[in-house]
């Protein structure tokens, strides 16, 4: 058990190191030189002297790996550097954005789960029935809709046609409604599809036939099916977190929700690289940790699966 835990932690750390290296390298893959990027994004006229001085100041003359090491140490301390745009530390901006994004994402996630769990059970139990066909149709369509499209359409019909909501979200519950809807609809549909498949797989499992053969009542069989699905459901949720993160960038940009996604899109437009790097590091870390946790949870639920 302890050995497994160590393996898990080592793999977690190694994934994070690769991620950080990838992010750091990305900056150097980008067209142009970092010092120049910094200066241009601040609107300074670039001359050779200014450029050299800037390079010196940023430590760009040191070897690549040394710079990576120094950067990594700072990141681990929670220091994501200063913004190219206004020389302010990046970290507080990211954290402020993260808080708003978390509110948005968690609300959408919980809402989706609450709806999809019951619908997928209903759909699986009444397989090929009317309810199942309706649920499947809607979840299929919802799954095929990009969330930017949903948000634009929602905006058009709810805000402009029937003027139910303001177009621009404010940081309150009313403002939360539209972005949450835009994120939840496709996610709910994906959850329904995946959970339904999972429940159906469990319903076909040998033990269900065995219990049926002993005349075990339906409600006990359902309990067993749910019990055995939990592990997989954790995995399904954890994998959707990634989609949720990408989706929130789009949604926050559309509805001007002051989250980390909108921050990163503004920074991409402004070529403010430290913010982009910080964004990937933070989101990547959250995602990796959540996925490893879900692995551990599903291993606890089903010890036969590998950790």
């Amino acid at each position, binding site marked *: 058990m302890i050995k497994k835990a160590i393996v898990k932690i080592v793999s977690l750390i190694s*994934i994070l190191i690769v991620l950080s290296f990838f992010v750091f390298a990305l900056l150097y893959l980008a*067209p142009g030189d970092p010092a120049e990027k910094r200066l241009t994004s601040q609107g300074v006229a670039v001359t050779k002297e200014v450029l050299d001085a800037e390079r010196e100041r940023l430590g760009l003359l040191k070897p690549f790996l040394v710079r990576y090491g120094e950067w990594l140490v700072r990141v681990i301390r929670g220091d994501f550097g200063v913004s190219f745009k206004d020389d302010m530390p990046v970290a507080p901006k990211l954290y402020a954005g993260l808080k708003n994004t978390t509110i948005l994402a968690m609300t959408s996630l919980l809402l989706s789960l609450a709806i999809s769990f019951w619908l997928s059970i209903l759909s699986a139990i009444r397989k090929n029935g009317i309810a199942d066909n309706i649920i499947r149709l809607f979840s299929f369509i919802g799954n095929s809709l*990009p969330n930017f*499209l949903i948000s634009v359409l929602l905006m058009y019909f709810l805000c402009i046609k029937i003027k139910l909501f303001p177009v621009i979200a404010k940081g309150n519950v009313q403002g939360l409604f539209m972005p949450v809807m835009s994120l939840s609809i496709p996610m709910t549909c994906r959850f329904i599809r995946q959970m339904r498949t999972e429940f159906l797989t469990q319903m076909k499992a040998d033990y269900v036939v065995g219990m049926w053969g002993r005349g075990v009542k339906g409600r006990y069989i359902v309990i067993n099916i749910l019990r055995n699905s939990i592990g997989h459901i954790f995995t399904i949720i954890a994998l959707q977190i990634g989609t949720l993160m990408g989706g929130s960038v*789009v949604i926050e940009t559309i509805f001007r929700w002051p989250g980390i996604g909108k921050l990163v899109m503004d920074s991409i437009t402004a070529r403010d690289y430290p913010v*982009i790097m910080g964004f*990937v590091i933070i989101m990547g870390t959250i*995602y990796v940790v959540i996925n490893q946790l879900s692995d551990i949870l599903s291993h606890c639920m089903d010890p036969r699966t590998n950790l």
Partner: protein
Amino acid sequence: MKHGTRREKRLRNRIIATAVLALLIILATTFAGILAPNDPYATSASSIRMAPGAQYPFGTDNLGRCVFSRVLYGGRTTIAATFLLVFISFLIGTVIGMLCGYYGGILDTVLMRLADIMLAFPQMVVAIAVAGILNAGMTGAMVALGITMWVSFARLARSHTFSIKNEAYIQAAFFAGKSDFYIIMVHIFPNLLAPVLTNALTQIGTTMIGLSGLSFLGLGVVPPKAEWGSMISEGRAYIQIAPWAVLFPALATIITIIIFNYLGDAVMDYMEV
């Protein structure tokens, strides 16, 4: 061929019908040059934001460009990019997966470790960052999505190669003195093609969603090039005045993705029967 049960026949008909629709879309966008009534890039100050009519079936946008023509041309961009990306991922992933599954050992460990790490990152987050930093238009967006996309092909091809390799007929081929290359090309590749192609089909919808999402954010095509995601993004600003500039490309996106997803689902169901 095997005699189809009723269910199989129904599924086959479903696949054929959807495939015809998909083909129609592909043809319509491929021959956009012939079908489009107007030049998609010609701006005209006299016909700004005109409602759909005889000359402009889907109306015009903020710059007086024909929305219908732009939808056709935009479809070509999206569909061509999607197919290219899926095809390249399919090629790279399948080759890597077959080699890993067949030879195993260090090669397998290293490449699959890499694949695991790729999957350990949130795909869209990485794609947004890569596309944003590279700033290389549609190519950038494709690279950004491709970084993680090959993995699903590689994993699938690997696991199938693995199970095929344990089949007795591969052993029989060894006893017949056949080379690794012969076995991979004659026995393994044809036998894993069906599931991997099915995966490719199901990836088309997802890839379209991803690519048009990136374009919507301004990380895909460079204006004025037509693309559905970016058209929706542009039209959004004046949706109150000219909703057709958003609704028609939106409709096109929805229909296309639904058709390809449906095709993927149907083929998947058919393979399971």
